[in-house]
């Protein structure tokens, strides 16, 4: 689990590095933001990364509901559809290790970001798959249900194309199978993850 957390953090570094404006980027055609700060430019491809804390809970007819705060991170990238609508792919990882049991969630979703006001506030929605795994290095519980997510955040401009984004995000899955070493245990497991964090976005 430590290795996973290390990888998670290591994964953030290149994305944060990407967030530094590239030479010539300002010469690209830009779509002015409809947000309150017209200086924030959103155009072409965009990238982002964030870290934070997630409260994860699992639910099923035989699951122990014991929500725990866990380390989380995300990476995202996409294209700008309009000046207030972004489309992208987002990967989210959540990890926890306690009492010899390692739990991790990895979600991959198609996400849409919208900026409904002239302020820097954004809301997002997404749909994808989540891969859940809990193991004690001997046995494993796994599940891979559909996941939907909604979130809100706010952009604080750091430069013309770079912003700091505190965010909150709620992910909820459909009911799916939970398997023990590949054998189905129950078919009604679902997960919820509530994330809070901060990220950087490069537009």
């Amino acid at each position, binding site marked *: 689990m430590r290795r996973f957390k290390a990888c998670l953090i290591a994964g953030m570094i290149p994305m944060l590095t990407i967030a530094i404006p590239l030479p010539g980027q300002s010469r690209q055609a830009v779509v002015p933001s409809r947000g309150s700060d017209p200086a924030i430019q959103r155009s072409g491809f965009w990238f982002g990364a964030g870290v934070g804390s997630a409260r994860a809970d699992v639910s099923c*007819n035989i*699951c122990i509901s014991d929500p725990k705060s866990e380390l989380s991170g995300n990476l995202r990238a996409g294209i700008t559809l309009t000046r207030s609508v972004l489309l992208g792919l987002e990967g989210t990882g959540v990890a926890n290790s306690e009492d010899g049991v390692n739990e991790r969630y990895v979600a991959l979703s198609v996400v849409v970001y919208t900026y409904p006001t002239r302020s820097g506030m954004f809301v997002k929605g997404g749909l994808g798959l989540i891969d859940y795994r809990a193991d*004690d290095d001997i*046995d*494993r519980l796994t599940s891979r249900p559909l996941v939907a997510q909604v979130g809100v955040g706010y952009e604080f401009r750091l430069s013309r194309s770079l912003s700091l984004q505190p965010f909150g995000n709620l992910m909820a899955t459909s009911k799916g199978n939970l398997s*023990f070493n590949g*054998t189905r245990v129950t078919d009604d497991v679902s997960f919820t993850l509530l994330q809070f964090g901060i990220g950087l976005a490069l537009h």
Partner: protein
Amino acid sequence: MIFQFLRRNAPLGLVPGAVLLLLSCSDGTGPIAANGPSMAFGTWVPGPGDTCSSETHDRFSVVGPDGKLYPTWHPPTDPATGCTFGHEHGRDPRGSHLYGRTGPIPFGYANEVLDAWDPGRMRHEDHVGHKIEWENDVVFRIEDGVSSRLLQVTCDVMTKLHQGTHSKDAFTNNLHELVYHIRCTDRTELDITVMDAIGTPGEFTISCGNNSHVTVGPATPANSPNGGGQRVIPDRSCIDAFLLQPPGTSSDFNAVRESWQTSVGIQKDNGDNIAFINPYFQVLFPSRFYDPSLAGGLGRIMDTCYETESNGDIAQGGACAQSTNNGQLPGLAFDDPRVVFNGSRRFVDINSNHIDNANGAEVWYTDPFGRHGATRPFPGSIRQFVASVRNDYGFDVSGPSMGGNRNYGGNGVHAPN
């Protein structure tokens, strides 16, 4: 006041008219059975110290799935008159979450069906041996590190075993009626009624021996099938080795604990198991032990509380001291209500509940031994319910003990119980 067994829903396996029949018995005569009394009904008669009449006792009855009248659970004292029956049937089933589904348990129904299934294999058991135990919301054990941390299975469990520990019956006879109900959060659901073949007929396993078996004699019926599990019962060697001790040394009363270890399968006609359970039924202070030097091989543990061996060994402490008020009550007979050795301290190890019936029928009809399961009733069959699931997850889920903190003695209860 007549004892009411009315429920909101139609009880499992009981004839639909049973509730109406019970309503009709407000004159105190008990329910009226369309098909007459069962062999088990009306067999109890009061002993010298029992103050209730047979008529009072027989009011505690229920109509079984076959329309016959059966005895059922009652408290050791009649709530209407306060008279005592001298025996108990364990925990009041009306407190179980499962009671709304099962209703009163007819005692001796499987024995009755066995008469029809195989008239050459009749097996009728006494009344006092029927013992109910149940527990709601039992947290089961999960034998895996990651699963036990994240998963929890809870169950409502109710059992009824005919477990007489006062007579010579179980020295040889391995057929005993077992009723078993369970509902779990993982959708494990069973309603089983069988004649349970516990161990090998004609013999038992010594409670203090190293899995030593004692062959006693022919069983009733003589063609009783072999079953899984075993009946663990004390014999004279346990008395000599563990109860009778040098003065100043405490007796080990755990050596005389009876443990009836079942192994029950519900099988299709082709022999495939669709359900398997193996509860262990424990009796801490039975009335009897096996002693081939005595008539019928039947010894009374209480009698040994007063014994002094030639080397001076005596029984000390524990249940002997409790029964004799630390030696101040000489000459207590085995059936004195003050004697602790009356079989009223019991517990049940629930253990495993396996179902391999995914997409299968939920209602099966089996012979009285749980075999030859078919989806349609046949002469001599018993209705069983097996949830349409498969609960083999790759890790064991098993039930803990229930009932160990209860004592069904007192209120005039005495051996035979």
